[in-house]
């Protein structure tokens, strides 16, 4: 017996077949646009080799990482410190002792 919430109850095969059948219709405009763009573009003389590509990728990654870390260091933690919940102040020992003294003694077994 199948569980009512089991994914097996969904006719996945039918859904997949429908999606696959609709795929060419969805992709056709994009493919036409891509072909048109590729045929109409002029040579840019902008070849990006592996060396420059590696450099661009590394630089972008480094700058992005530096910005994210700077956001954490300069904004997130100071704001968290300013607006975050303050840690509960521990009750002073004297106060606790006074409270203990005021409480009636229940451990007396004399009487």
């Amino acid at each position, binding site marked *: 017996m199948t569980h009512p919430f089991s994914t097996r109850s969904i006719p996945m095969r039918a859904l997949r077949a429908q999606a696959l059948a609709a795929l060419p219709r969805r992709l056709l405009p994009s493919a036409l646009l891509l072909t048109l763009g590729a045929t109409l573009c002029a040579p840019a003389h902008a070849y990006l080799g592996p060396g420059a590509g590696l*450099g661009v990728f*590394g630089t972008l*990654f480094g700058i992005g*990482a530096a910005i994210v870390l700077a956001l*954490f260091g300069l904004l997130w933690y100071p704001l968290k410190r300013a607006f975050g919940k303050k840690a509960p102040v521990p009750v002073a020992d004297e106060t606790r002792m006074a409270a203990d003294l005021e409480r009636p003694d229940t451990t007396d077994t004399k009487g």
Partner: protein
Amino acid sequence: MNLLALPVFALMGVVFHELFVRLHVLRDIRRVLHIAPAATRIIRSDTLSDLEKETAVRRMSLAVLGDTLRFTAKLALVLGACLAIAATAQALFAVSPDGLYGLLSSWWALAALLVVMPVYARLRSPAPARG
């Protein structure tokens, strides 16, 4: 395309390899790429206080920026040296009829560099003997 293009590309490959290795560009790139997991570990750490995290993250941000600028400058130097060789060869010998851009974006350049650089790297530092 002039046949002189082949030694020019070979020279470019050798210069690229030598500068890339001697300037330790790869070490800088690796350092930048290793910062991200380290920063994630610090941010998710349970043992560090927020103040310690803040200080560490600020320091790491500056370190990443410095390393990135350093390796970008080194890489620009390496690529600029290769470009200078090609420009000099083109100015002196008119290696390609399509000018410098035509020379650099030709298939000859890619094929020559793909052959020369691995061969040169292998000859420069031969693989350790097995056994």
